[in-house]
């Protein structure tokens, strides 16, 4: 009844925080490898496409991206507050809109593949 809707975004924040803690170090390491020019075999077009075409691959990528953007969005709302921005409703709308756009784009591109 009186439980604030923050319960929902906090749930996404907590789940996303756990997931990013586990997954992002490896993800950043892969971008690091790409940046050095040593693109790993699994990231060559044919292999990564095979992965992204499969429903399991799509599901994994979507869950990671969805929870990550909502995690980051909620934390950015707190960051804004901590840096003295007091227009919380405006900030909340902005960051959650970004998260929603990210979620929709991720879903859209994943469905476009394959």
């Amino acid at each position: 009844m009186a439980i604030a809707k923050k319960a929902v975004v906090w749930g996404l924040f907590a789940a996303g925080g756990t997931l990013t803690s586990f997954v992002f170090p490896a993800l950043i390491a892969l971008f690091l490898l790409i940046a050095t020019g040593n693109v790993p075999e699994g990231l060559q077009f044919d292999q990564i496409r095979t992965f992204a075409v499969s429903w399991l691959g799509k599901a994994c990528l979507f869950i990671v991206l969805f929870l990550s953007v909502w995690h980051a969005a909620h934390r950015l709302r707190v960051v804004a507050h901590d840096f003295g921005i007091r227009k919380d409703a405006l900030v909340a709308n902005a960051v959650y809109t970004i998260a929603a756009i990210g979620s929709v784009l991720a879903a859209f591109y994943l469905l476009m593949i394959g």
Partner: protein
Amino acid sequence: MSTQTRQMELEVMRYDPEKDDAPWFQTYSVPCMEDWVILDAINYVKDNLDTTLAYRWSCHMMVCGSCGMMVNGEPSLTCKTFIRELPDKVRIEPLENFPIERDLVVVLDDVMQKLHQVQPYIIRKDDPPAEDKEYIQSRGALAKFKQLTMCINCMCCYAACPQYALNKDFIGPAALALAHRYNRDNRDQGKSDRLDILADHDGVWDCSFVGACSEVCPKHVDPAAAIQQMKVDGAVEFWKQKMGIPGDKS
């Protein structure tokens, strides 16, 4: 017993509500015994150097919770802050985030009201037991919240909490930890009543898990952990209510 003394400089924040526009610092030079705590040094000032100094204390043994002050910027129970762990110059201020009544005495009205607000008592929905019956509690059930009963309301956690500093509507660490203590008590049936207050806007969600409350707590209550657990409860309860599943009564 050591008779060795060490000369310490105590920079004490002073504020006289009838004379001063703002607080200021007065320095006292105190011959301290090596086994003293900060409260002993302040008592020495009161007894020997300056009778006008106002501060709160009672038990001198970490039970009453009234001698909380800022010691070199750290919220501390002055009866357990030993001078042997401190440099020769120490700055004593009233607890942060509270209005100053006089000198080292702060106004605690706000947290008193908040402690009351969270309904920190056992709530039963059923009839009380017959005269020859009692509410049974196993040791395992007690262990679920025993740590949370250690709070002595010294309010060091409020002085450490930046979210309370920034927003006085936030219920804050000690009151939330106390609410969680009753939520986890198997004799209590008021969890969903409390969640309506605690999981509302100024409840648990205003906490951003800085964790400072738990770091400064002299009784190792760990309010930060209690608040995170309540967030989990709040998130679960939210979906239960949405889906029409009856709330957790125990």
